[in-house]
């Protein structure tokens, strides 16, 4: 067992992990953070995405031991002070069906909008290319993000815009 210390959703935590423990399992089973989902455990589906030092990563491909000293954010963290702009847009557009892909899509979209508050359709598609959804045909997801982008473009003169 190795001790690791990291910041999870704004809170500092130290835990013991085995060298072969996968971050996804540690988040879900040890820390009780269930929003990252396991759809494939090999980096293909994006359902397990979390923000690691602000960058979206597939937590099924990261060993827990690697995150010592890092900062991790999950959808629980994003939701902790009420709904984010991204979540509100997805609710408004009824963007999800079964919802199993939703946490991963929220993570990828949050990362995109923090970097680029007014992405084009092509940029949105590129950012979400690794998040598989079998239900929706992606249209309502794309439309929700496009809507935020338009809104930000419109308001950028006044606010300079934060995107959460």
């Amino acid at each position: 067992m190795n001790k690791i210390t990291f910041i999870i959703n704004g809170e500092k935590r130290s835990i013991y992990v085995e060298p072969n423990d996968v971050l996804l399992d540690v988040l879900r089973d040890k820390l009780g953070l269930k929003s990252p989902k396991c759809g494939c455990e090999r980096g293909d589906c994006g359902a397990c995405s979390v923000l690691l030092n602000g960058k979206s990563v597939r937590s099924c491909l990261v060993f827990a031991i690697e995150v010592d000293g890092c900062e991790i954010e999950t959808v629980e963290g994003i939701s902790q002070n009420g709904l984010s702009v991204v979540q509100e847009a997805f609710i408004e557009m009824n963007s999800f069906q079964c919802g199993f892909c939703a946490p991963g899509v929220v993570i990828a979209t949050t990362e995109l909008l923090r970097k680029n508050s007014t992405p084009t359709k092509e940029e949105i598609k590129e950012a979400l290319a690794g998040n598989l959804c079998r239900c929706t045909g992606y249209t309502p997801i794309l439309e929700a993000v496009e809507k935020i982008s338009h809104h930000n473009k419109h308001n950028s003169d006044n606010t300079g815009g934060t995107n959460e």
Partner: protein
Amino acid sequence: MKHKVVGANVTRVDVKEKVTGAAKYTDDIQPDSFYWGAQIGSNVVSGVLKGVIKNPDFDWSDFVYVDASDIPGENEVESVVSDMPLLATKEIRYWGQPIALLAHRDKHQLEEGLKNIKIEIEENPIYVSTIDESLSLKKEIIPQNIFKKRKIERGDIESGFENAKYVFEDIYYTPHQEQMYIEPNAIISWWEGEKIVVKGSMQCPYYVQASIKTVFHKEDKDVEIIQAYVGGAFGGKEDYPSILGAHAALLAMKANEPVKMVYERAQDISITTKRHPSKTTIKMGFDENHKLTTLQMEFILDGGSYETMSSVILARGMLHAFGPYEIPNVKIDGIIVATNTPPNGAFRGFGAPQSFFATESHIDYCALKMGISPFKLREINFVQRGGSFPTGQLLENDVMIREVYDELLKRVNYPVLRKEIDDFNSLSNTKRRGFGIATFFHGAGFTGSGEVRLASIAGIRLDKNGKVAVLVANTEMGQGAHTVLSQIVAEALELPFDMIYMEEVNTQKVPNSGPTVASRTTMIVGEVLRRACVKMRDAIKYNSLDDYLEKVSQYLGDKESESFFQQHLQPPKIKWDDVNYRGDAYGTYAWAIYGVEIEVDLRSFEVTLKNIISVMDIGEVVHPILASGQIEGGIVQSMGYALYENIIFKNGRFWNADFTNYIIPSIVDIPKMDVSFLNNPYSYGPFGAKGIGELPMNGGAPAVNNAIKDALGIHLTKLPLSPEQIMEAYERDL
């Protein structure tokens, strides 16, 4: 009639939980102490089981092990035909077939335990993996390798072909298709005294209950089945949870603690049900006016290694195989054959995507051969109001195929589009564009007398505070059923939407309103609910909301609540003859057309989807955004079926059991989609609604095939429509 809640885009009842990560899917349920369960499957394709050997030097003290000898009741999987054992005892028919089960509290330890178990099987090196191998009796799995045969006949095909001016025949093939819900199959089970509880990702709680009752010889009251959030299903969680649920309950029986079984993706793809592969031989005869007078088909489905529910999938495939046409002489032979692959099962469309691929591709092929436009050929042959299907079903005002077709041509402005495409093609050296259509339909509800047999019961419960709970066993798996059913109840009671809520889908709390399959939830269960609401309104008369609350408290008095139930009523005039396959196969049909514009690269032969236009009649649209979402999602699944999805079978097992090699469409693959609805209300659906869930799966593959035919002049007969196949046909036809 103008409705208030029906037709409105209310917010989905479950969307907030889903975007905040609060929704608890099965694997998110974590009791304080529990076991992880795993399955020990066959490591050969075919053979005879000799034994399971647990390494005597390994410490088994914290493990729970189950094999067939632990089963208290029947060792069988309850289905239409219950021919599959829950755990194999002797005969092995497919790779991965469940033999034993193992559980441990620690995931890593469980892995270790699995490594210390050896299965001994006397292998039979000969096995059957395709329909053609099965028919050639490469090996006999069951007598003649035939599970079932059915027939639909009308008129006289012999004289039909004799008198035909044109006759064309071809053979079409479709492969397995994996449902590929993003949440793999998952179940958790525990015992409370004598009662078994199973909670999980499932479409049909009462199917799981029936399965457990058989395996454990239990009564209804001792088997409680609860639906958790379902991360997609598409038919793939119709029958499989009956197996997984019983496995978990067996382990829980011996563990004396909850047992959770969550399949890994590779395992889920390798051993759970898929869309049946098909081989369809089709022959069409036309008279001098291009009237389709005669159709002969042999529609063969690969059932896999056990029959289970294949016969009803065959039936639906055959009952959609004749297309939206009036044909006087018809003979359709349906056959299910056995192969050494996992049993195939339900997947959105349920046999119809396979038969429509053949029929709707063949119509365009015949048009090409006769030198007339595929549009014209359809116009000549569409079934009309007052016409009939080959089963003898009279179609009165229910036919909308010509209307959706006319609407599509209007929306795409076909003459202009044609010119654009032709101009593009004459200028480009490296690319070709094409436009193709497919016309199709889907019968909602169980086939034939199925709904009468189901005799579904649904209801509502009026609570003291005036809120109304919806009592159904139909599951929310993303399709929006719980939102739509709540809307129907709100409308029928003339109450605000937020006064309606869903009771937990739990066999001890809700009646058996039937399985969540066959595009039946909105239309059949919704109508039973609407009638339950009428019953409540007969009991309590109210005018306004204030008045309502007052009357409710008068009516209930000291009681906490009162429930109102109704049972499915078969619409009058519907007659079905199960033996001869004659009559009204479905109460009604939803009608549809796709127009697909594609571009083919002449160097890579890759197909790019540019534009998909869909026009459908689904009766009254209860929730326009959710309905469009169903159609868009279905279109994209059908595009996957058309272009990429293909299970590859190597050395007797599925080789590409992952997302890397089994390709489903991603956000970069999706075309522009234009989805619209015509509204021809169905008198026996709630507020005129019909079923829609499966419809969008039926037309995608033939529409893309026809667009490729338009672009390149080639005729393809096999799914997926891969670059290799296109290149071969293109170079051959040059």
